[in-house]
């Protein structure tokens, strides 16, 4: 019985320590996931917060002439101008018309500064023919 109590005690200590570490990591890395529409309507409350915004990369909007690439993502009627300030290479799947998920925060000049970009064209890849498919 004593051994069992010791095991339970050890387990509780380990779990408590890990919970605390997890909480610290959570606070450090949490990001609010919002749509382009929500982003446009609640800009003020997002100052200083890390957010993730997903939308379609607008055709013709990718500007690689500046030292930091800029582009616009949109969904529905709203759009967001994004500047990429991250270190990682831009994913191969990031092209005009692809879906992009950008993570970052609002810069003082109102442009969204993205530290990470995820892009997905796989869905588009499959969707192109699927409109015509049936049994």
């Amino acid at each position: 019985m004593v051994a069992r109590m010791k095991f339970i005690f050890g387990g509780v200590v380990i779990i408590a320590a890990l919970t605390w570490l997890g909480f610290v990591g959570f606070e450090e890395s949490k990001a609010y996931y919002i749509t382009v529409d929500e982003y446009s309507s609640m800009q003020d409350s997002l100052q200083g917060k890390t957010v993730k915004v997903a939308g379609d990369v607008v055709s013709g909007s990718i500007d690689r002439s500046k030292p930091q690439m800029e582009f616009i993502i949109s969904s529905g009627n709203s759009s967001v101008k994004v500047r990429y300030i991250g270190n990682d290479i831009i994913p191969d799947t990031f092209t005009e018309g692809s879906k992009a998920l950008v993570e970052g925060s609002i810069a003082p000049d109102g442009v969204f500064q993205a530290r990470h970009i995820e892009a997905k064209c796989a869905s588009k890849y499959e969707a192109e023919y699927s409109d015509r498919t049936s049994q």
Partner: protein
Amino acid sequence: MANFGNFCLLLALCLSLYALIASLTGISQRHSRMNKSAENAAYAATGCITLAFVTLVYVLVTDNFAISHVASTSNRDLPVFYKIAAVWGAHDGSMLLWVFITAIFCGIAIFQNRNRYRGMMPYVLAILMTDLSLFLFLNIFFSNPFNRLVEVFPDGTIQQFLPADGQGLNPILHHWAMVIHPPVQYLGLIGFVVPFAFAMAALLSRQLGDTWIRTIRRWTILTWIFLGAGLLLGGKWAYVVLGWGGYWGWDPVENSSLMPWLVSTAFLHSIIVQERKGMLKVWNIILVVLSYLLSIFSTFLTRSGIISSVHAFADSNLGKFFLIYMIGALFASLYLVIDRRTYLKSERRLDSILSRESAFMFNNLVLVVACFAIFWGTMFPVLSEWVRGTKITVGPPFFNNINIPIGLLLLVLTGVGPLFAWRKTSVKSLRRSIFWPVLISCITCIGLLAGGMRHFYAVACLTLCCFVLVTIIEEFLKGSLIRVRNKGENFLAAVVNLTRKNKRRYGGYIVHFSIVLMFIGFAGNAFNRETTRQLETGQEFGIGDYSLKMTGYQEGQTPNYEYGKVVLDVFKNGREVRTLMPETRIFKTGSRQTTTTVALYSTPKEDLYVIFAGMSNDGSTFEIKAYVNPLVYWVWVGAAMMVLGTAITLLPNKQSAVGRT
């Protein structure tokens, strides 16, 4: 051909449903001919599914673009190798691969055990057929790879549509690791259905003796190694294809396959406690159920579109079926465990905290906590949306903060576990066996600190790796030296014979050794360096011990893509060691996607990893990104070693084979 494929799948669904009903009837009426008939129907279903799978391979290889799956994942100029891989190049085909592997596993499991556990097999069959029917049903009616392309005209008429060429395989899948990663991963995920079926059958038939445990232990080891290899192949692919410099990013889809691997790792350890001491019986069944549910959860996550991920397939409407099935299976198995709990009583209590049992229990605890934390982090966006209406995602710092300490704790347990005796370890014997490992790892630690290494986790990890390594060497030495003394064998022969005589134990140590090698590789992450440069021909730059000089730029094309290569001469400490040619490719099919191909100079000490990230508009400067990633090499060596060690544990033991007949 498409009709034939569909026919095979439908026939297989009928057969598997028949096998399910027949085995249930056989159970309730105690009718052994009914059970035999169910068994035969299951083999026939396996045969039909194999035919359907071969049909899909055939239409891909013969460029039958009238079929939607072929048109969207293949093209005429694609090498045959990739045409076959195009089976799993999109959602519906990969679903057929899943069904195919499930069917093969069901067939093997039923055939292997048909005469061994008579009373249990009808239950096993019923559960396997439930799983197979579900996936077949979804495959046929919601993600059918044999669907044909049709064109709808404005006046409402519908006609078949045959494109001249297909859209081609997604360029990022053009890699050897991507050709084998999905099948290996699937073997690893799907295999858990067999232990689950046996566990449930044992509960249902109340035959909870220890014999069936042996069967599922071997199945779980096999599944476990496939899943581990699948995870590592996926990591390898991400490393050399995605070009962000790493091999693991805590992406939801990666996490979802890691979870069943962690739980099954826990099971493979705790099952030893049940075999030896008759303890943890309920816990072991729970681990088997969890491994299975998490493997279904993994495919649910990938296919439902509930979590956005780079790997996820397009949203499909399969999600609700998986969800209902998982919840149903969870409650059914929980009910069974509670109802049959009297059969699952522990035969012994934990005697001492310093015992092998206790080490195994701590190992289980942290593995399951790791799994839970990963589940929490992965599902947090969904959970927070339910509870508070805002979707909040968590990133790598959360996962690293929890999992790095867990990894270190597991290393400690890997080291001390084998030194503990069953039941109780005397402090005196522990002190004796732990002396050398502690001494040598302390010296290593001092050496690392003196060498200027200051990263806490890296120092701790390398020190513990050294500790485990010495304990493993000590185990091999102890056993071998006894053989040398008693049987007069030479040392090398003694090591080989020792391993052959007890494959489970020493194969297990080799797996532990492989884990140590991987952890050495993980520790290297603390010292990654990177730099980005704009280069003109003739210019050079340095990173770490290397300097890279750009000597030229080449363009060209293959039938599938156009490429541009930057030629870089690599010098290490002034001596030319290698020419690296990072490349970008523009694929001619589909939406003309661009991919980057990493150039790698890998040595045991470090990887030099170079990417050609783009060219200025006038074509005069080239953007090169270079990483120096220490010790990554050892992750892959560890992976190979892990497969080897597991293979040794799975080799049949001569004595037990004789004993059985």
